[in-house]
C-alpha cells in the first residue's frame, strides 16, 4: 500500500470505504478517491495499453488531460480513471489488451513489428492485393481502438437532456482566476454561469450558477455546449470569460511513456489530494520552478529524491530552497532515458545538448517526475476567433488578440497563478527530443507517434504541421493535442529547420474533451404534422406514411378497391394537408391577379377557379383552387407540400407591393375532406340543408353551409374525376364531420380512400401533381395548360415576361398521357427514347387503373410525338416497351361526369 497518513489538502474520507472491482478483482477505496488514485494506492501501476504498440501506460497527469488511464466503467468505454470518482459497486475494466492488461499479446507490435508500422503503414503494407483490403481493415480495426462498445442495444442507449441556458456571462474554468471573474461579474448584477470540468466540487459563489464536473466542448458562434453527466447544456452568453488554465507539458525522451514517469502536477495531486505516495525514490526533471516544487512535496511525503535536474543553466530561487532541504539541483541537465520493464527502475540524466557516457549519470528510481513547462490551454479560446503569437521567452504560443466579448484570465492569459511568489525565474525551453536512438521517444502518447515518426513524415513530404497531423495522427487522439501539440511543433521545427512561429499551430476544433456520441445526438425531435382526423385513419387500418412533414394514410389496405369505390359509390379522403390561405382586402383581387397567370378579379363570389403559380421564369411552382367568398375575400388552396412556400411567396410579394391586403395562413386551422363519387350528392344531402342539386350547386361553386351541425365551406370541385365536394371546416371538428359523413354514407357504400388511390384517380383525369409531373423547367405551355395563361390581362403578373416568350416558342417536350396494353407499369422516372434511341423525355407517373383495366401514365415526350396515337418507347432499367400517346383524360375526357 502506498497510502500516506493524513495530508492537509486531501479529499478522501477515510471513514467511508468504497468497494469496486477492477477486471473482476475487488478494490477498496475511500470516498473522494478517483478510480486512478484508488488503484494506484492498491498497487496498480499499469492502467492501460497504448493504442498502437500496446505498451504499458501508467498515471501521468492525474488531471484528465492525457490518455494513459482510460478505462471502461460499467461497460462504457472512454472514462479517465484519474478524474472519475469511485462509486460503490462500480465495475471497472481495462481497455485495448488481450488477454489481460499485464500480458497483452499485441505487445508483439512493439517488440518485433516497429519497423513495419511507420506512419501510414496500413496504406503502405496492406495495399496489395487490393481486394483483400476489407479483410485487412477489419483486422486492423479489431486490433486498434480504445475499447469495445457495449453489445446489447439497451446498454448502449441512455437519455441525454438538452438544456438551453442564457446568461450574461459564461466563465469557463473554476480555478482561482475563473472564480474571481465570476464573483466580480455577479457582484455587478450579471447573470453568471461558471463551468468547471475538474473532479472536485466548487464552493458556491453568490449569484453564480456553477456547473461542476462539466466540460465545455466547443464554441459555436457564441453557443457553448457543456457536457455534464446526462445533460448537454447549450449556453448562450453575452460575454465569455476563459479561465481554462495551463497544461503541463511532458518531455520527449527515450522511454518517456513507462509507468512511473509522471508529470509534476500528477505526482503532486496524487500526494496531496488523495494521500497516495507516487513512488519511493524519485528523479525530478523540470524546466521551471513550478516543476521543481514537486521535489519538495514528494520529499515531505517520504519519497526519497535521487536526483533533480533543471534544464535551465542557472539555479533559481526555488532550486536554492530545495538545496536548503538537502536536495541538490543540477542545472543545465535533462533526462535522456527512462529504463525499466513493467515500470521505471532507473533514469539517465545528462547535460542538455551533450551526450556520451562520460557526462551521463544513471539513478535508480521507481518514479520519474518531469515538467516540460506550462502552455496556456487555448483550444476553446481559439475557437472564438482569438489569435495567437509565438512567445520566444516562454517557448510556446500565447493568446494575442481576442474578439469582442471574449476575455481570458489566469494562466490561459499568461498569468502565472501558481508560481506567483514574486521570484519565479523564467522557464527554459526544453530540447525537442533527448536520448534519441536509445528507444522510442513519444511525442504523442494517444496515437503512439514518436519523434522518429515526425522525422519520417517530414522526409516523406508531410512538412507542415497540418499535413503531419493528418499523416501521423499526432494531436488527433483523446488528449486533443493537450500533451502533444507543442512537442510535435518543436519536432517539426527541428526537422524542417523552421522557426516555431513559422511552423504554427494546428487548427483548434471541437470537441475539447472526449464525449460520447450519444451526448451529441441528444434527444431527437421528429416533428410530425397530423390532421385532426389522423386518429380515425389509424383506427381504420390506414397505412400511415410520411408525406412531406405530414403523417398521412396512403391507403387502407386495398388501394385498387378504394379507387373503384369512388367510381361505383363514394369515397372519402382526408385532404386537411392542403395549404389554405385567406386573402382579404380591397386589393385582394388585384393581388391574386399579379400572382397568378390567370385572372381572379373577375371571379364572382361563390365561384371557384383553378390557378397555377409560376415563378419569375414562368415555371410552374404550385397549383390549387381559389374561391371568392365575397368581394374582398378569397379562399386559396395550395398543394400540401407547397403550402409553406406559397405562404412565404405571397407574404414576400405583399410586403413589396404594399397592397391593401391581409393574409392569414389557415393551413393547420382547417380540416378538409373530399367526398366524391356517384353517391356523394346523396350522402351530403343527408347532412345539410343546402340544396345540392346540380342546378343549385354547380361544378366550381363554393357554398357556405352547415354539415352535420358544423359551419363549412363546401367547394364543388373534383380532383378524382367524379362528382365531388371538398368540405372545409374548423379543425376541432375533424373527427365529427368525418364520422358523420362515413355514417351517412354507410348505406351508400362509402369507403375511405388514401393517397395512393387518389393518385390513380387523378391520373385517370390527367391532373398534374406539381413536383411529380413537373420540375423546375416545366411551364404551363409544356404541361398542356396554355389556357391558364392570360397574357391579355390588364395587370403585369409574375412570370409574364417569360411566359410571353414561351407562348410563341414550341417547347422541346410536352406533358402527355400514355397507355400500355401489356400490363407492365413502368417505373416513374423511366426514360422516353426518341426514334434514334436517344433519351428525350421521362415518365412522371404510371399506375394500373382498375376502372380502365389498363396501365396509364404521364410523360414528357418530344413535342412532335405529343399527338394522340403516337407511339413512344419507354426504357426502364434495360427493358423497353412501347406505349401509345393520349392527350385527353383517360376517364371522362369531356368532364361530363364531373359536371353532372
Amino acid at each position, binding site marked *: 500500500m502506498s497510502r500516506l497518513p493524513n495530508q492537509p489538502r486531501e479529499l478522501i474520507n477515510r471513514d467511508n470505504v468504497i468497494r469496486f472491482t477492477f477486471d473482476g478483482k475487488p478494490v477498496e477505496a475511500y470516498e473522494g478517491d478517483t478510480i486512478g488514485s484508488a488503484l494506484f494506492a492498491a498497487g496498480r501501476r499499469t492502467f492501460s495499453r497504448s493504442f498502437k504498440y500496446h505498451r504499458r501506460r501508467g498515471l501521468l497527469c492525474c488531471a484528465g488531460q492525457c490518455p494513459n488511464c482510460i478505462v471502461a466503467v460499467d461497460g462504457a468505454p472512454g472514462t479517465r480513471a484519474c478524474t472519475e470518482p469511485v462509486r460503490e459497486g462500480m465495475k471497472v475494466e481495462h481497455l485495448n489488451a488481450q488477454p489481460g492488461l499485464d500480458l497483452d499479446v499485441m505487445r508483439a507490435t512493439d517488440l518485433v513489428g516497429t519497423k513495419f508500422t511507420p506512419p501510414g503503414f496500413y496504406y503502405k503494407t496492406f495495399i496489395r492485393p487490393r481486394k483483400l483490403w476489407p479483410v485487412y481493415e477489419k483486422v486492423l480495426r479489431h486490433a486498434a481502438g480504445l475499447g469495445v462498445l457495449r453489445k446489447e442495444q439497451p446498454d448502449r442507449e441512455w437519455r441525454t437532456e438538452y438544456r438551453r441556458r442564457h446568461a450574461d456571462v459564461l466563465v469557463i474554468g473554476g480555478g482561482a482566476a475563473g472564480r474571481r471573474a465570476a464573483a466580480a461579474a455577479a457582484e455587478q448584477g450579471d447573470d453568471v454561469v461558471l463551468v468547471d470540468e475538474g473532479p472536485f466540487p466548487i464552493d458556491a459563489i453568490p449569484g453564480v450558477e456553477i456547473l461542476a464536473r462539466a466540460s465545455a466542448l466547443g464554441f459555436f458562434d457564441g453557443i457553448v455546449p457543456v457536457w455534464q453527466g446526462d445533460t448537454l447544456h447549450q449556453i448562450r452568453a453575452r460575454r465569455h470569460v476563459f479561465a481554462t488554465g495551463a497544461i503541463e507539458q511532458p518531455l520527449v525522451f527515450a522511454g518517456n511513456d513507462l509507468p512511473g514517469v509522471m508529470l509534476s502536477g500528477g505526482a503532486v495531486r496524487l500526494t496531496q489530494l488523495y494521500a497516495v505516495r507516487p513512488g519511493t525514490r524519485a528523479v525530478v526533471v523540470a524546466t521551471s520552478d513550478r516543476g521543481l516544487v514537486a521535489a519538495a512535496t514528494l520529499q515531505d511525503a517520504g519519497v526519497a529524491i535521487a536526483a533533480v535536474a533543471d534544464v535551465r543553466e542557472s539555479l533559481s530561487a526555488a532550486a536554492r530552497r530545495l538545496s536548503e532541504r538537502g536536495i541538490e539541483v543540477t542545472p543545465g541537465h535533462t533526462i535522456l532515458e527512462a529504463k525499466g520493464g513493467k515500470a521505471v527502475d532507473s533514469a539517465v540524466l545528462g547535460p542538455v545538448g551533450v551526450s556520451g557516457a562520460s557526462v551521463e549519470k544513471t539513478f535508480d528510481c521507481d518514479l520519474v517526475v518531469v515538467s516540460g513547462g506550462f502552455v496556456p490551454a487555448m483550444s476553446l479560446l481559439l475557437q472564438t476567433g482569438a489569435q495567437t503569437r509565438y512567445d520566444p521567452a516562454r517557448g510556446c504560443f500565447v493568446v494575442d488578440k481576442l474578439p469582442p466579448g471574449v476575455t481570458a484570465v489566469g494562466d490561459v492569459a499568461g498569468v502565472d497563478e501558481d508560481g506567483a511568489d514574486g521570484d519565479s525565474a523564467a522557464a527554459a525551453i526544453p530540447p525537442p527530443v533527448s536520448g534519441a536512438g536509445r528507444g522510442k521517444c513519444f511525442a504523442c502518447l494517444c496515437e503512439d507517434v514518436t519523434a522518429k515518426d515526425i522525422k519520417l513524415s517530414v522526409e516523406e513530404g508531410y512538412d507542415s504541421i497540418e499535413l503531419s497531423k493528418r499523416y501521423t495522427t499526432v494531436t488527433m487522439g483523446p488528449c486533443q493535442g493537450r500533451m502533444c501539440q507543442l512537442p510535435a511543433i518543436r519536432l517539426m521545427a527541428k526537422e524542417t529547420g523552421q522557426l516555431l512561429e513559422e511552423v504554427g499551430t494546428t487548427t483548434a476544433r471541437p470537441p475539447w474533451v472526449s464525449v460520447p456520441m450519444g451526448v451529441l445526438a441528444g434527444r431527437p425531435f421528429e416533428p*410530425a404534422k397530423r390532421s*385532426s382526423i389522423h386518429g380515425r385513419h389509424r383506427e381504420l387500418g390506414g397505412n400511415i406514411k410520411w408525406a412531406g412533414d*405530414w403523417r398521412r394514410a396512403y391507403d387502407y389496405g386495398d388501394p385498387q378497391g378504394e379507387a373503384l369505390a369512388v367510381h361505383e359509390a363514394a369515397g372519402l379522403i382526408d385532404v386537411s394537408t392542403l395549404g389554405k390561405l385567406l386573402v382579404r382586402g380591397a386589393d385582394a383581387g388585384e393581388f391574386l391577379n399579379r400572382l397568378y397567370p390567370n385572372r381572379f378579379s373577375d371571379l364572382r363570389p361563390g365561384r371557384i377557379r383553378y390557378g397555377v403559380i409560376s415563378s419569375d421564369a414562368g415555371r410552374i411552382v404550385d397549383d390549387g383552387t381559389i374561391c371568392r367568398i365575397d368581394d374582398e375575400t378569397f379562399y386559396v388552396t395550395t398543394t400540401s407540400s407547397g403550402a409553406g412556400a406559397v405562404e412565404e411567396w405571397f407574404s414576400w410579394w405583399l410586403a413589396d407591393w404594399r397592397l391593401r391586403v391581409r393574409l392569414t395562413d*389557415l393551413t*393547420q386551422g*382547417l380540416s378538409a375532406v373530399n367526398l366524391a363519387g356517384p353517391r356523394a350528392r346523396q350522402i351530403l344531402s343527408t347532412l345539410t340543408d343546402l340544396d345540392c342539386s346540380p342546378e343549385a350547386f354547380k361544378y366550381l361553386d363554393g357554398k*357556405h353551409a352547415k354539415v352535420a351541425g358544423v359551419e363549412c365551406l363546401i367547394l364543388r370541385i373534383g380532383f378524382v374525376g367524379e362528382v365531388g365536394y371538398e368540405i372545409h371546416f*374548423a379543425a376541432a371538428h375533424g373527427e365529427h364531420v368525418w364520422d358523420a359523413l362515413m355514417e351517412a354514407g354507410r348505406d351508400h357504400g362509402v369507403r375511405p380512400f388514401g393517397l395512393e388511390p387518389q393518385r390513380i384517380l387523378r391520373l385517370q383525369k390527367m391532373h398534374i401533381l406539381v413536383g411529380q409531373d413537373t420540375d423546375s423547367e416545366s411551364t404551363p405551355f409544356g404541361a398542356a395548360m396554355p389556357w391558364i395563361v392570360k397574357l391579355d390581362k390588364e395587370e403585369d403578373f409574375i412570370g409574364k415576361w417569360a411566359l410571353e416568350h414561351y407562348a410563341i416558342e414550341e417547347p422541346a417536350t410536352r406533358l402527355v398521357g400514355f397507355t400500355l396494353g401489356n400490363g407492365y407499369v413502368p417505373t416513374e422516372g423511366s426514360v422516353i427514347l426518341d426514334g434514334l434511341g436517344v433519351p428525350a423525355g421521362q415518365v412522371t407517373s404510371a399506375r394500373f387503373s382498375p376502372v380502365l383495366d389498363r396501365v396509364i401514365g404521364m410523360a414528357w415526350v418530344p413535342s412532335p410525338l405529343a399527338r394522340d396515337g403516337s407511339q413512344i418507347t419507354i426504357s426502364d432499367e434495360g427493358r423497353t416497351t412501347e406505349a401509345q400517346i393520349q392527350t385527353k383524360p383517360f376517364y371522362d375526357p369531356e368532364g361530363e361526369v364531373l359536371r353532372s
Partner: protein
Amino acid sequence: MSIAFLSPATAGDTAVARSPMERTAKAAGARFENRDGWNVAVEYPGEDRVRETVGFTDVSHLRKLEIQGDEVPGELGEAKREGDAWICQLTPTRSLLLGGVHAVPPDAVDVTTCFAALTIFGPLAREVIARFCALDLRPQVAPPGSFRPGSIARQPGMILVQDTDRFLLLFGWAVGEYMWSVVDDAARSLDGGPVGSPPTENQ
C-alpha cells in the same frame, strides 16, 4: 358567403370540438368535461403531485383571434392584458387576441384552431421549456407579459409569459400530438406531468 366556417364556436350542440391533444390526454388518463362545446381534459390521476414541480395543461380551446390593420396596438415582444384577454403583437400590423369572451372585433379572423395551446407552470416550468426551446425566458429578460415568437421543439410557435413561472405556448394545431409528446417527456423527466384545465381558464 362568410368566413364563419373558420370558427369552431359556431358549431351546433351535437358537434363537440376536440383538441388535437385529446387522444394523448385520454391515454394519460384524463377525465373530460364539455365546456362551451369543447371536450376539455379537466383532471388527471395524481395531478396534485406535479404542482410542486411542473405541470402542463391543454388549453387549445382558448379563443384566438387574429387582428390585422394599421391600428393594431402593442409593442414588440410584449403582450397587453385587456380584461380577461391578452393582446399579443406579432408584427406592426398583426396581433393575436387570446382569450376573453367579448364580441369579436370587426375584421378579426378566428384562428382558434390554427394554434393548439399548452400552459406550462410551476417552479420548474422554465427548466422544462429549456429542454426543447432556446428562447430566453429568464425573469429579468422575460417578465410577465412578455411575448416571444420563435422556435419551439423545432416548430414555429409563440410563448406568452402569463405570470411568474407560468407560460402559454402556442403552436400549430397539426403538431399538437407531437408537441404533447415533447412537453410530456420533458416534464416527466423533472417529475412533472399533465394537469386538468381549471374551470376558470379563459375561453
